C-alpha cells in the first residue's frame, strides 16, 4: 500500500511534544491553528470594516464593526441547546421528507447488481470489493451532504420561512449549528445503513468454498514408492480454483490462489471419504505494520538517502540495481520480546513483510520473479548478520520473512535474534539486495514492516466509515457556511470548488509556490490559449510582464488559501481497508480533531455571516 505521509505520533502532531527542541511547539498543529485562526479573524475584521466604510463612512464603519464584534461574541454564548436541537430536528424532517432516502435505494440497487459488473476473475477480491463499496459509499454520502447542506438555508430564504424563524429568540449560531447537527445526524444514519449493507455485501462476496474434484486426485509417492498423500484440484467457484494437497491423515490445504487458501478436513461416511473445505482464509485482514526508517546504498556501496530513479515521474519509490552492492536498508527500533510473534508451531519469530516493486531492463522469463536476498544485521556491529534469505519476487508482491528467533549467522553459526542482532537500545537492520543483474527492485519506506498481531477486519471497516463520516461532516459544514451568505447554486459551486481544491491540494500548493511548471494561473491560461509549451520561456514584452506580475499576487493569495484548505485526500482510508492494512487510531484521532476544528471555524464564520446579513429584502 502506498503511504506517502506516515502519521506522526499524536502528541507530537498536536502539541509538538516532546519540547526538547525550541521550535517544536511552533510546528505543532495547535500552534498553526491558533495562528491561522488569528490571521483569518484579522482578515475578516479588515474586510468587514472596508465594506462598512464604503457604505457608511469611516466613523460609523468603526462603530458598526465594533458593535458586530462585541455583540456577536456575547450572543455566541447565548446559543441554546434546546433551540439548536429544534432546528436540527427540523433539518432532519426536512431532509427525510425531501426523499433523501432515495439515495439509499440507489445504493442498495447498485449493490444488488454489483456482482454482475465486478466479474474480474476474482483477482484481489478483497481489494476489489472493499474499494468498490467504500468508494461508492463515499461519493454517495458526500453528494447527499453537499445537496442537503447547500440547498436548505437558501431555500428558507427563498420561501421566506426564515422570517418566522429569526423573529423568534433564535440566534444565528442556533441556526448554523442546528443545521450542521441535523444534516450530520441524517448523514450518519444513512452512512450507518450503507455500512451495514456494504459489509453484508463484501462478506457475502468473499465467503465461499469449493468441493474437491475427485477425478483429479492422484496419489503422491515418495522415493520408496510409499503413498504420502494426494494432490489434485478443487471445483471452480467464484471464477477460480485451487490446487489441493491432502496429507495421509486426511487433512490438507487448498493452496493459495487469489490471496486466499482453504483448509481441508475429511471424514469417512459409508466407506467413502468425504472432503470438506473451510471458508477462505486470508481475504479479510487488517495487518498492523510496524515501520522502520529507510536508507539506501548505491551501486558502489555508498550510503545515500534515495536509490536510483527509473524514470517514473512519481518519486515515491526509488530503486536498487541488481548484482551490485546497491541495497535498501531499513532500521527498526524498539524491538524486544513483545515485538516478536509466534509461528504455527509456537516458536518465536520476527514476522517481517516486504512489498517489492520490480523494474526490468530486459524482459527475461516474465513468469519467473526476480531474485533477491534479505538479511538481518546488527546496526552497531555490521559484521554480525543473519544467514542470507534468498527469495524471488514478482512485481507488487508481498513477501513474507518469518525470521525465527534462533537462527544462523552468515558463517552458519547459531545466534539469537534478540541477543546478537538487536542492539541494546532495540535497533535492528534489514538489508535487501537484488541479485539478478541489470534488474531493479523499487522500495519506499513503508514497503518493509514488522507485522504485529492483526487487527479485526470488521473494526477496520468501521474505522473506514468513520473517515467517510469525517469527510461528510466537513462537506456539510462547508455547505451550510456557504449557504448563509449566497444562494443555493452558488453555495453548491463554492462547496464543490472547496472540495475539489482539497482533493488536489498538493497540486494547488505546487502552483502557489511555483514548483509546478507552467507558471501561475494567468501564465498557464496564456500558454493554453497560445498553445505554448509549459517549459519554454515567455516572450518578453509588456503583456507577459503584466501577466507575471498579476500571477505573483495571485500566487500569494493562493498560498494563503492553502493554510485553510482541507487535504481531502488524506482523509480517505479506503486504501487501508482495500489492501488489508489496519487504519492507525492515531491517524483517525488526528483527522477527527482536524474535522472538529474545521467545524468550529466554519461555524463561527457562518454565524457572523448570517448575523450581519439582512434577512429580508
Amino acid at each position, binding site marked *: 500500500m502506498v503511504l506517502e505521509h506516515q502519521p506522526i505520533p499524536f502528541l507530537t502532531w498536536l502539541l509538538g511534544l516532546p519540547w526538547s527542541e525550541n521550535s517544536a511547539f511552533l510546528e505543532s498543529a495547535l500552534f498553526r491553528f491558533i495562528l491561522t485562526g488569528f490571521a483569518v479573524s484579522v482578515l475578516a475584521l479588515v474586510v468587514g470594516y472596508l465594506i462598512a466604510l*464604503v*457604505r457608511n463612512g469611516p466613523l460609523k464603519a468603526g462603530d458598526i464593526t465594533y458593535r458586530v464584534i462585541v455583540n456577536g461574541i456575547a*450572543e455566541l454564548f*447565548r446559543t*441554546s441547546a*434546546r*433551540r439548536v*436541537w*429544534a432546528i436540527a*430536528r*427540523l433539518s432532519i*424532517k*426536512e431532509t427525510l*421528507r*425531501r426523499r433523501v432516502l432515495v439515495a439509499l435505494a440507489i445504493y442498495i440497487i447498485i449493490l444488488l447488481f454489483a456482482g454482475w459488473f465486478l466479474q474480474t476473475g476474482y483477482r484481489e477480491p478483497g481489494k476489489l470489493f472493499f474499494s468498490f463499496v467504500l468508494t461508492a459509499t463515499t461519493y454517495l454520502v458526500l453528494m447527499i451532504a453537499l445537496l442537503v447542506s447547500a440547498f436548505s438555508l437558501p431555500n428558507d430564504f427563498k*420561501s*421566506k*420561512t*426564515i*422570517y*418566522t*424563524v*429569526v*423573529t*423568534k*429568540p*433564535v*440566534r444565528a449560531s442556533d441556526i448554523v449549528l442546528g443545521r450542521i447537527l441535523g444534516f450530520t445526524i441524517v448523514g450518519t444514519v444513512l452512512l450507518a445503513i450503507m455500512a451495514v449493507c456494504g459489509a453484508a455485501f463484501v462478506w457475502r462476496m468473499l465467503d465461499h468454498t469449493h468441493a474437491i474434484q475427485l477425478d483429479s486426485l492422484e496419489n503422491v509417492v515418495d522415493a520408496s514408492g510409499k503413498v504420502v498423500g494426494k494432490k489434485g484440484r478443487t471445483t471452480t467457484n467464484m471464477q477460480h480454483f485451487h490446487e489441493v494437497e491432502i496429507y495421509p491423515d486426511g487433512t490438507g490445504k487448498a493452496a493459495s490462489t487469489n490471496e486466499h487458501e482453504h483448509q481441508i478436513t475429511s471424514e469417512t461416511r459409508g466407506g467413502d471419504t468425504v472432503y470438506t473445505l473451510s471458508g477462505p482464509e486470508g481475504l479479510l485482514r487488517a495487518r498492523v505494520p510496524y515501520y522502520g526508517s529507510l536508507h539506501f546504498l548505491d551501486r558502489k556501496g555508498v550510503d545515500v538517502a534515495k536509490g536510483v530513479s527509473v524514470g517514473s515521474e512519481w518519486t515515491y519509490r526509488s530503486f536498487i540495481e541488481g548484482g551490485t552492492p546497491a541495497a535498501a536498508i531499513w532500521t527498526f527500533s524498539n524491538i524486544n520480546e513483545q515485538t516478536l510473534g509466534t509461528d504455527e508451531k509456537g516458536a518465536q519469530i520476527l514476522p517481517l513483510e516486504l512489498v517489492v516493486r520490480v523494474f526490468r531492463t530486459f524482459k527475461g522469463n516474465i513468469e519467473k520473479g526476480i531474485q533477491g536476498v534479505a538479511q538481518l544485521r546488527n546496526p552497531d556491529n555490521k559484521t554480525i548478520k543473519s544467514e542470507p534469505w534468498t527469495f524471488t519476487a514478482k512485481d507488487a508482491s508481498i513477501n513474507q520473512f518469518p525470521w525465527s528467533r534462533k537462527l544462523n549467522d552468515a558463517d552458519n553459526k547459531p545466534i539469537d535474534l534478540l541477543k546478537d542482532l538487536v542492539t541494546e537500545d532495540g535497533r535492528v537492520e534489514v538489508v535487501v539486495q537484488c541479485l539478478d543483474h541489470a534488474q531493479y527492485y523499487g522500495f519506499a519506506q513503508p514497503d518493509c514492516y514488522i507485522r504485529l498481531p492483526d487487527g479485526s477486519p470488521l473494526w477496520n471497516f468501521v474505522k473506514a466509515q468513520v473517515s467517510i463520516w469525517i469527510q461528510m461532516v466537513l462537506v456539510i459544514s462547508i455547505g451550510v457556511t456557504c449557504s448563509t451568505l449566497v444562494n443555493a447554486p452558488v453555495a453548491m459551486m463554492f462547496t464543490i470548488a472547496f472540495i475539489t481544491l482539497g482533493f488536489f491540494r498538493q497540486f494547488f500548493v505546487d502552483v502557489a509556490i511555483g514548483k509546478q511548471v507552467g507558471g501561475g494561473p494567468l501564465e498557464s491560461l496564456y500558454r493554453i490559449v497560445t498553445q505554448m509549451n509549459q517549459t519554454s520561456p515567455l516572450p518578453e514584452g509588456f503583456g507577459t510582464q503584466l501577466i507575471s506580475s498579476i500571477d505573483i499576487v495571485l500566487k500569494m493569495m493562493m498560498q494563503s488559501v492553502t493554510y485553510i484548505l482541507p487535504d481531502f485526500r488524506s482523509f480517505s482510508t479506503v486504501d487501508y481497508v482495500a489492501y488489508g492494512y489496519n487504519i492507525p487510531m492515531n491517524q483517525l484521532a488526528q483527522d477527527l480533531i482536524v474535522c472538529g476544528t474545521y467545524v468550529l471555524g466554519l461555524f463561527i464564520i457562518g454565524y457572523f455571516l448570517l448575523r450581519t446579513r*439582512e*434577512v*429580508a*429584502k
Partner: protein
Amino acid sequence: MAGETVIETRALSKTYRDFWGRPKVRALKALDLEIKQGEIFGLLGPNGSGKTTTIKLLLGLLFPTEGQALVFGKDATDVSKNQRIGYLPEESYLYRFLNAEETLDFYGRLFDIPHDVLKERIDSLIKTVGLERARKRQLKEYSKGMTRRIGLAQALINEPELILLDEPTSGLDPIGTREMKDMIIRLREQGKTVVMCSHLLADVQDVCDRIAILHQGELKELGRVDSLLTLADVTQIRAKRLPQPCIDEIQQVIARHQGELLTVEHPTTTLEELFLSIVRDSEARPGRRVVQEASSNS
C-alpha cells in the same frame, strides 16, 4: 394612551441598495412613531408605501439605513426582544412539510417553552384557531384560510405582549375575517399591543384605535381613528318612517308631519374616503408631512 411605550421609531429610514451598494429605492423616510401598550395600531398605505418595510425594520429583518427603531426599549436588531413578540407575516411563511402540531411544537421550542406547558398551549391554540380536524395534516395540503390560522397560532405560541400582523385578513372568507377581527380585539382586552398593516380599510376601521397612513415612504396622517374620521363641518340627521313625498323638503316636513327625529350629530366619513383623499392630496403636493404632535391634537 397611558401605557408604557412599546415601539418607538426615531427618524427611521430605509434605503434599498443594489448589489454594488448604490441607493436604489428610499422605502422609508424619517419615520417617527410611538406606540403604547394596549393599543391596536394600524399601518395603512398603498402598495409600496413602506408599511411592510416598517414592520420588517421593527422585527430586525432589515437594518435601518438611518435612525433607530426601539422595541420594548431595545434596539430592533436585538434578538432577545423577540421573546415578547409574535409575528404573522404577509403570507404565512411556514414549513410546508410539517403538520399543525409539529409547526407549533417547532416554534414553541425556539422559545424554550417547557415541554408540558408547550403541549397544553398547542392544544388550546389549535382549538382557538379552529384547526382541530386538520392538526395532523401537512401544511402543504392546507387552504389559504387554514394557513393564515396556523400562521396566527404560531404568532401567539409565546403569549406575546406585542403582536405584529402583516395583512391579517388577507385570504380569509367573511366569517374568517370576522373571527380574526374578534381575535384582535380580544388580544387588546388581554392588554396586548397589536400592530397591523392592511389594505383592507374596513378591517382597519373596525378594530384599530390609532392609525398611521404612509405614502411613498412618508407618514401622511397619524391619529385616533374616531377623531380622524369625524367631519366637524357637516350635520347629519337620521330619520325613520318618512313618507316619500316629503324627502325634498325634509327639514320643514319633519316638524309638520310629526316625524320622529332620531339623532342630530356630526357624521363620520368612511376610512376609505379619508384614505383616498390623503393619497390624492399627497400626489398633488408631494413632500407634505405630518408631525406627530399636530396630529395627536386633532
